[in-house]
């Protein structure tokens, strides 16, 4: 280990690994610190992603692809099912993230980044008002390490940014509180993602069943913290499993949180940039955060390295605009749609599903389904219009 680094990345998830890799590729010194024992574990994620989202960063590899997805199935509260097929060019994957994340970190290492696990960052060091390194605990010893730039990829908790004065805490209504399991003997189509909606299943969120091959599935749900006031995510999961799969053997059980909101107002400050869940870069409509986190990480890593190489550290502050132009602005629109859907009653979901079912299967495209949903739910149109106008 060096005594000082150009860039220190806190957290070795997909966003952190891409920040480390894109910075290291430009030839600056990079250290990535991970608080857990393992990169990629535990997995708090539905693990679905588009092939395009993956291949922007890493070639597809069957070692970490558990299912190839060419179909969505939406299940309304009255149990009517709406299926949507897409062609293989738009294929998606269900990942084995414990291997996928590990491979992403390896690509960062290949680019020259150093990685240290079980290193718990618990503070920042400052030079005047500029972040100039981290405090961390390693093997019970409190240590400090200087860096020109710190990239915070510390996930849903997002404490590192707070220590730098950024407002990172998320409104509890925007937190999707999740519980999930991987279960065996789940007889579903192995190329379809299943989404359930409704107040008894997953109000202000959705319930998912994603295949992982050999009839193993990633099953879980998220509900807004607003719902959690009255009933926990775990209670919804238990009811669903009792009803649909009472005897399924359960291989893993885990909780997690998905910050489902627009990106933070500020994701950089002197000497620091935030990426991934820590920056609230999750797609607020789908809750997907792997691809958007990798994009955020790659942009921040590149800009941070450029700032170091040009000896112009204020260049880091251009990261906010670069992110907003690439995805941030689109997330504002998605968030508006999410808020419209949040208020749907079960009757509205049923009505939409029954209207979409009338579109011949071969003519169903995502655009057509969405248009039908809008016609049957004019108030949603107002929500969508509002976000486009503002």
């Amino acid at each position, binding site marked *: 280990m060096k005594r000082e680094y150009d860039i220190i990345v806190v957290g070795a998830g997909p966003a952190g690994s891409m920040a480390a890799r894109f910075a290291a590729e430009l030839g600056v010194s990079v250290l990535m610190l991970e608080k857990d024992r393992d990169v990629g574990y535990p997995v708090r994620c539905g693990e679905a992603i588009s092939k395009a989202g993956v291949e922007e960063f890493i070639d597809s590899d069957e070692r970490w692809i558990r299912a190839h997805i060419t179909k969505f199935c939406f299940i309304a509260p009255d149990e009517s099912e709406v299926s949507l097929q897409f062609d293989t060019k738009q294929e998606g994957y269900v990942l084995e993230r414990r291997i996928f994340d590990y491979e992403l970190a390896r690509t960062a290492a290949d680019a020259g980044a150093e990685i240290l696990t079980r290193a718990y960052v618990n503070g920042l060091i400052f030079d005047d008002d500029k972040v100039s390194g981290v405090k961390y605990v390693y093997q019970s010893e409190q240590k400090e390490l200087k860096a020109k730039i710190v990239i915070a990829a510390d996930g849903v908790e997002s404490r590192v940014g707070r220590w730098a004065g950024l407002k990172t*805490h998320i409104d*509890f209504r925007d937190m999707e*509180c999740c519980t999930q399991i991987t279960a065996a003997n789940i007889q579903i189509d192995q190329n379809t993602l299943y989404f359930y909606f409704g107040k008894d299943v997953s109000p202000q969120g959705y319930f998912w069943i994603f295949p992982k091959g050999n009839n193993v599935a990633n099953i879980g749900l998220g509900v807004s913290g607003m719902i*959690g006031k009255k009933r*926990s995510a775990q209670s919804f999961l238990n009811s669903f499993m009792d009803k649909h799969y009472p005897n399924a053997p359960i291989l893993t059980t885990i909780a997690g*949180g998905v910050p489902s909101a627009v990106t933070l107002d500020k994701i950089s400050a002197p000497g620091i940039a935030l990426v991934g869940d820590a920056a609230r870069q999750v797609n607020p409509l789908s809750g997907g955060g792997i691809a958007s986190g990798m994009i955020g990480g790659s942009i921040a890593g590149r800009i941070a390295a450029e700032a170091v190489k040009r000896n112009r550290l204020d260049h880091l502050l251009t990261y906010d605009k670069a992110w907003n132009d690439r995805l941030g602005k689109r997330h504002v629109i998605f968030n508006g749609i999410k808020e419209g859907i949040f208020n749907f009653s079960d009757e509205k979901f049923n009505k939409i599903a029954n209207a979409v079912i009338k579109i011949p299967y071969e003519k169903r495209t995502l655009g057509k389904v969405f248009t039908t949903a809008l016609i049957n739910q004019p108030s949603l149109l107002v929500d969508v219009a509002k976000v486009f106008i503002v």
Partner: protein
Amino acid sequence: MIEILPDKCDFCGCCVGVCPEDAIELKEAEISIIDERCTNCSKCIWSCPIEVIVFNKEGILIDQFKSVKSV
């Protein structure tokens, strides 16, 4: 006072993300509330997916639905 049941916690970080006071410390499998910062706002309780955050009222642990978890 708010308390996290350490044996039941899954260390997922939901509560940390919603805490307005940065009053929760989470390591790999260790979690604690920094009492001096906690204002008992309850947002962590509502956001916990698995109901492991409770009120400690004079040694009696009760959940948000007022049922007693342990004495």
